């Protein structure tokens, strides 16, 4: 068992803004341990989402290494990255981003089918996963029939269904009220601990920080670990 499923070493990423290069991420190093939930905070425009999309194999860095489960994926092609996303990463978005025309259970089975992991036991696995997020009574519903919190629960179940080592959440509570936000982060945290996964949560929401194991602040294109007490 690899103890650090995700390691970033000296990662750089810049975007061209007119004539000048805009260094969003500079010399960033970071490692994620099994079984922990990490929060990343920082002002808008500080590069949190860029960090997340590099860590999540959506973008390749200009320089540096991105090591997922011991493999450096920094120079992978789009097709190879899609495969990494399918098998090792689970996403939770700001808005749940469910596929509008699929029922709740189909949202989950689609992921397994795309990964060619659909077997006889998969149906039960989907049911168990939906039970774990408290959505077993909604399996036949379409996304538009669910509330915001329910959609986010389905999105969480979808992120976990293909047994990814790493969960990446981008503002997962932005569209929810505070009670629901806490419940969602608790849910992510519980599943991460139970199944020995790890999670990165990018957030603006200070009240969820006590539920995270470590907190990083995005500053000048780098991630700086911060004490929890400083923020509270």
């Amino acid at each position, binding site marked *: 068992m690899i103890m650090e499923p995700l390691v970033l070493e000296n990662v750089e990423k810049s975007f061209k803004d007119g004539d000048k290069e805009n260094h969003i991420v500079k010399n960033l190093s970071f490692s994620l341990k099994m079984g922990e939930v990490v929060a990343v905070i920082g002002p808008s425009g*500080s*590069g949190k989402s860029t960090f*997340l999309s590099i860590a999540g194999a959506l973008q390749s860095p200009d320089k540096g290494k991105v090591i997922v489960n011991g493999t450096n994926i920094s120079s992978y092609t789009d*097709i190879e990255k899609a495969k990494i996303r399918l098998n090792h990463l689970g996403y939770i978005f*700001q808005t749940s*981003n469910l596929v*509008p025309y*699929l029922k709740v259970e189909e949202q989950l089975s689609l992921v397994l089918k*795309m990964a060619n992991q659909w077997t006889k036991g998969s149906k039960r696995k989907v049911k168990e996963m939906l039970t774990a997020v408290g959505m077993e009574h909604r399996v036949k519903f379409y996304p538009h029939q669910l509330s915001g919190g329910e959609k986010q629960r389905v999105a969480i179940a979808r992120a976990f269904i293909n047994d990814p080592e790493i969960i990446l959440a981008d503002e997962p509570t932005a569209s929810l009220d505070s009670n629901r936000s806490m419940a969602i982060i608790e849910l992510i945290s519980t599943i991460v601990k139970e199944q020995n996964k790890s999670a990165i949560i990018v957030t603006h929401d200070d009240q969820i920080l006590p539920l995270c194991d470590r907190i990083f602040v995005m500053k000048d294109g780098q991630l700086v670990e911060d004490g929890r007490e400083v923020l509270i």
Partner: protein
Amino acid sequence: MYFLPFKEMTFFKVRYLLISFILFFVAILVFVISGLANGLSMNNASSIINMPADTFYLQKSAEGRIDRSHLTTMDLEKLSAKDDAQPIGIQMGAISKVNSEDKLDITFMAVQPGSFLEPNVMAGKGLKGGGENSVLLDRSLKSGAIKVGTIVKDARSGIKLKVAGFMDDQTFSHTPVAVISLDTWDSLAGSREKSEYNGIVMNKDDSGLKKDVSSLVKNGEWVAKDQVIKGIPGYTAEQNSLYMMLSFLIVIAVFVLAAFFYIMTIQKAAQFGILKAIGAKSSLLVKLTIFQVILLTIVNIAAAVVFTKVFMTVIPDDIPFIFDTAQIAKFSGILFLVSIFGSLLSVFNIVKADPIQAMGRLE
């Protein structure tokens, strides 16, 4: 994975029904206009279209128009022994029933009885069986007043003709054809010496025979059957108008269908982003999109073909309509390719669809 397009289409029923309707109606319009074009073409020129002819020998100065071509009788007699090269006479005229002033416009077509030029009858007897001064009429003239055995007279000369039989689909320049023998033709003209013929028809491509005919009958040229059909008065103008409409329709269809499928994929950019973020490859999404378009096109074109078949049986008989399977297949193919082309335009957008945008915000 091919269940995804089905799920999508059943979920967004209204959207896909609308697209289907557009495909369906464009296809119907193309099929119906081509059916009418064929129908009119047949209604105009079926006597020549149905003639088992290969080439026509017409007067040079006639420029391929059989009604303007004149060859003298003297020349034609030299050909009498040749079965595969037959003289033909075509003359607009009118007939009426004996004791009646009501004239019917017809086109006299003079042929050698029993030759390959004499059309088959669907009722009654042929020219040989009908005896002297017998006439075969197009089926459209068959009525309570005119039937087999009725005597009609030529409006100009007053010569009486006996209706020997009726034929299917024999028209020339939108008038029904009356087939008579060459002897009758001569007597309508007054005498053999005064009589003129319009051309010589050959039923096969025989260069030796062509040479013979050309050397015997001067001042003529060989004209292909297609050219002769186009030379029938009104034929080209009519067909050109219809084909102009058809080609515009297809050009419009290209843009409408391409634009529709293009917009449809652009609208789905966010969906593609989500699917990519959870691990779908671009190639899978492209495959699914094209599969969906193929499905929509095939279903709707098939429905339009069925509709056109039904339409054909429902419209009144006096609207000429012909369902030409080969042509319908050709137009179906064109519409199919156009739709695929439209969806291919959007492949670029699928490949470009950015999973990062699906995350809801960008920095």
